[in-house]
């Protein structure tokens, strides 16, 4: 399927830029959605704040995390959720639907790399309100923290956050690849949304079996807890090494899954 001689000029970066621009232009037609999404983001975070208030009306700390630290986790959780719902989830859901409806051919017959192409086709721009609200919550939390974060903490946070996005993307790509084998997996979205909620709290509070599951099966620990640890100054360096190594492995494994799945797709449609 891949034909390097006809690869578009400027390569993957330019292609991504073009798709992103078209996506944003599409979404810009529906400006009122910004306010509707903002209201929804605020309502969701409001619920989270109520829960946090109830929790801390009964206790001083939760598994060694203070109130501002947990607030920071909630901010990161909201932010990460926003990025996933803007860039990752819409594309991966489209893959699942395309496989079922046999429309994936339209992506596969294009000269660019198929994995790249299916990962950049859609952007739900207005979901970025979650990122806005998440950054707001995180800022409030950081101001309340004593001692406040130093620049190393913030720099580490940004790097780990990016690495976390990559690991979640890989996880979603593997889920989407599963649709080549299982016919009806619209429920993967429900599955992911449900499991993703577990990231609202640092994975350290969960019992061992669940903690490992949320680290190595669904990389929520890497996407939310570890960056939160970085920004609140609780980070152990060995978890950074594990995280980066694991993310690299995931990149290869998910690509392999995708390629395997594609082979199956070709067999089914012919």
């Amino acid at each position: 399927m891949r034909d390097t001689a006809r690869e578009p000029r400027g390569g993957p970066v330019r292609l991504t830029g073009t798709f992103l621009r078209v996506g944003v232009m599409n979404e810009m037609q529906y400006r009122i959605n910004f306010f509707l999404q903002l209201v929804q983001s605020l309502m969701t975070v409001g619920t989270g704040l109520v829960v946090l208030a109830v929790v801390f009306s009964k206790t001083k700390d939760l598994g060694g995390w203070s109130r501002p630290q947990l607030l920071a986790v909630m901010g990161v959780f909201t932010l990460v959720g926003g990025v996933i719902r803007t860039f990752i989830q819409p594309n991966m859901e489209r893959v699942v639907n395309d496989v079922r409806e046999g429309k994936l051919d339209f992506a596969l017959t294009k000269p660019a790399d198929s994995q790249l192409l299916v990962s950049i086709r859609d952007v739900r721009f207005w979901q970025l309100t979650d990122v806005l609200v998440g950054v707001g919550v995180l800022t409030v939390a950081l101001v309340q923290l004593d001692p406040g974060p130093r620049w190393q903490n913030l720099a580490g946070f940004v790097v780990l956050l990016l690495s976390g996005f990559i690991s979640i993307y890989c996880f979603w790509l593997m889920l989407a690849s599963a649709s080549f084998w299982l016919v009806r997996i619209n429920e993967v979205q429900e599955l992911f949304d449900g499991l993703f909620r577990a990231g609202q709290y640092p994975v350290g509070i969960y019992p061992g079996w669940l903690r490992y599951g949320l680290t190595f099966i669904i990389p929520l620990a890497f996407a939310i807890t570890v960056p939160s640890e970085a920004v609140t100054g609780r980070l152990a360096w060995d978890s950074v090494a594990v995280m980066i190594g694991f993310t690299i492995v995931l990149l290869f494994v998910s690509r392999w899954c995708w390629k395997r799945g594609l082979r199956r797709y070709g067999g089914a449609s012919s």
Partner: protein
Amino acid sequence: MITIYTAHMRKAVLTQFQYRAANYFYMIGMIAEPVVYLVVWSTIARANGGSIDGLTPGGFAAYYIVWTLVRNMNIVLTPFAWEERIKEGSLASQLMKPMHPIHQDISEFMGWKVVVLLLWLPIAAALVALFRPTLSPTVLQCVVFFFAIWGAYLIRAIMQWSLGLVTFWTTRVSAIFEAYILAEMLLSGRVFPLVLMPKWFQTLTWYFPFRWSFSFPIVALTGPIENRDLFIGLGMQVAWIVFSIGLMWMVWPRAVRRFSSVGG
């Protein structure tokens, strides 16, 4: 009427049983939520010397494991479904049938419940093994529980069905639905057992349907609950079912009139 219900139910059982993997995905996604709450609250209970507001880790485990069953009973037609029905015109064919279209939705979801309950059993067994709930209901509690989960299903099914009809008036429905769902999360006992909340909050929950379709069936089984409150709860469920049917009778004819006017 009963024949039609059983026919729809049987159809749903057969269809949904084909999609075991999909149904399991759905359920595992759903089970994550109570496990999170359960872990958070048991952690606090342990740090607090074994219990908060009378609930031990075993008590929380019982609450949230019964929660998973009640949550499954709570699955009804999402109000978001109306958008597609109206847009794609599948509603038109439903309107041709002599029976009110809500019957098909209610009976199909009832059939699905049978499959869901079967698939739920191993998950419940795993949760029991992992979290060791303390649960010792009386016979009366079990009987009330059996009726209460179906009462809960009817309240939620009819309320959400009526709520979905808003789609006939505006296309910007998601903000309204989300607000409704968030109110439900807090007021139903879904996020935290209501007993943890201050008195005024607990009183407030009496005036919404949410408590009766969620917290009540759970507490009916896990206790502590007086026999008197068991019957009051069932009574409140009946009252809310009557209320939601009334609401639906008022809104549905008006909604259909709008549909025909749009369809031309």
